[in-house]
């Protein structure tokens, strides 16, 4: 009798997770597997997609420096965005954490702001401020004589990094903030009573403890920036492509689906490797803080 009950108990978790599992398999794993398979198919201007197994697309990506440049740019932008959000977001979270109740909730809303605004409105807002000769800031600075020609923003990597950092900031701030919540509220007083000044307290006591928060925020920001589509598409357009916009163009403009699939697959694999690798590294390095 007991074995029957045990058997039923052992099956229960599977039965309960089955609906979600099926959805996961149906809408994520199967399309993903099909995309990977698609990347090995052939394509021609007139013949369309041919379901054969060839390495043509992968060879093209590996040999043509155009693609290498594209991936280098993608990861350069993602790294710079990550650095920028870490440099600005960590102090921002620290200051936010020290604010009193009402101001804290107000500024938290301000920080979450970019996520609440549509990507198109937000990015075009940047364009209005810095876009060419007609951008508000550029016009102001030029009329004041600070600069002679407009600061280039549209179709530049700088523009992409700034716009991406803007929208990624909440992820970094919230991640660091979560780490700050785990801090003993008396820890700064303890360090101070032992003779540490404010700089030493931040460098020796606070920083090492929030580092895991900064790094997990960095992983989120990095992977989201590297695979970001909308912001690079608006700022960079056709002129300055990244991996995501390149895959999009191959799919929808050139109609070379297999090549687009190969680009998308490579981006995915690279991101997974980077994220899993750095995560393992962080967990080993900060084992004592994570416990």
């Amino acid at each position: 009798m007991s074995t029957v009950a045990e058997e039923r108990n052992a099956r229960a978790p599977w039965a309960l997770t089955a609906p979600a599992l099926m959805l996961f398999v149906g809408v994520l794993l199967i399309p993903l597997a099909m995309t990977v398979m698609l990347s090995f198919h052939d394509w021609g201007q007139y013949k369309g997609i041919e379901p054969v197994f060839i390495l043509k697309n992968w060879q093209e990506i590996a040999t043509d420096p155009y693609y290498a440049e594209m991936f280098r740019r993608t990861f350069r932008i993602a790294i710079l965005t990550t650095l920028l959000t870490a440099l600005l977001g960590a102090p921002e979270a620290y200051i936010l954490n020290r604010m009193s109740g009402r101001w804290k909730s107000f500024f938290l809303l301000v920080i979450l702001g970019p996520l609440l605004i549509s990507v198109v409105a937000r990015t075009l807002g940047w364009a209005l401020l810095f876009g060419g000769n007609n951008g508000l800031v550029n016009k102001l600075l030029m009329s004041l004589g600070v600069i002679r020609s407009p600061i280039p923003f549209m179709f530049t990597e700088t523009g992409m990094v700034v716009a991406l950092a803007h929208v990624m900031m909440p992820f970094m701030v919230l991640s660091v903030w979560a780490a700050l919540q785990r801090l003993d509220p008396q820890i700064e007083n303890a360090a101070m009573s032992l003779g540490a000044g404010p700089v030493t307290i931040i460098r020796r006591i606070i920083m090492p403890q929030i580092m895991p928060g900064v790094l997990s925020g960095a992983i989120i920001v990095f992977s989201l920036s590297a695979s970001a589509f909308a912001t690079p598409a608006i700022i960079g357009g056709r002129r300055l492509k990244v991996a995501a916009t390149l895959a999009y163009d191959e799919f929808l403009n050139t109609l070379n689906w297999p090549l687009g699939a190969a680009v998308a697959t490579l981006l995915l694999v690279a991101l997974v490797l980077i994220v899993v690798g750095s995560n393992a590294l962080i967990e080993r390095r900060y084992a004592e803080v994570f416990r």
Partner: protein
Amino acid sequence: MAYLELDRVAKQFGAQTVVDDFSLAVGKGEFISFLGPSGCGKTTTLQMIAGFLDPTRGAIRLEDKDLTAIHPAKRGLGIVFQSYALFPHMTAAENVAFGLEMRNVPRADRAERVRAALAMVGLAGYEDRHPRRMSGGQQQRVALARALVIKPSVLLLDEPLSNLDAKLREEMQIELRQIQRTIGTTTILVTHDQNEAMSLSDRIVVMSQGRIEQIGTPQETYEKPASAFVSQFLGKTNDFAGTIDRTATPVRLVAGSWSAPAPAGLSGPVTVSIRPERIGFGDAGLGAKILTRIFQGNHWLFQCDSECGPAIVIRQNDGKPQPTEGEAVRLTWRPEDMSVRARTGG
């Protein structure tokens, strides 16, 4: 003369006065406890000494120097926090060494002092452990070693034992007292536990609602409580309503059927306080009936219904027969064991 002196210190948060008119002179090497219920201002007072809060009024002096003018990082006080506030990313030895590092103690000297401090608190061999891998008691010891290794002028303890279980707490109390006696550091302990305050301190400062109720040795505060609050907060006590009968000669103090020559200087309604262990059963005295009798090993605890309301009596288990439940008894005590206060209101 006084080593650490608090002179009419007060702290206000907005309109709320948390500590008021707090004056205390602490001698060098003394162990003082701030005792009171939560919200009585004891921790606030400690934080003002530490420098985490500035007093609204009054002065705090250490060896006649104004302490409030010195930045908390420069005060050189050792503090053990309720949560210990250890640095989780550092080993026990690194935690203890931090204060020495801030004082630029040479590396070799530092290692030696860290080792000695950890050995003193019984943690020799735990140098490379991280705090999160240690038990609560061990963390507490690291926090103590970290505070003591800098040879602080005053050691401040903010409810350091409240997170430990009862048995460990008792062990730590004894150990804390021994360490303090050995190195002779002036110590201030904040606690809400009267047993802890009594077993550790030279003097107790009993606080209530931001004010000092009484300053005295543990024995004084227990046996001669200055107010009803002190007598009730420090252990169990019986309060009986009595009156001073001025028509009798000599003037007598009467509580129910119990009476004694009245103490000088009081008249009218009074409150008579007697500790339960000072009450005995006799042939004459306050009439009472025993409601329950509880055996507690080395003593008996009696709950009685007396002429003057409920009463608790504690008798040593000396092997003699004790009254049983339901028995009518007479409660009696020596006049010098009671404290008598004028009764106001009801």
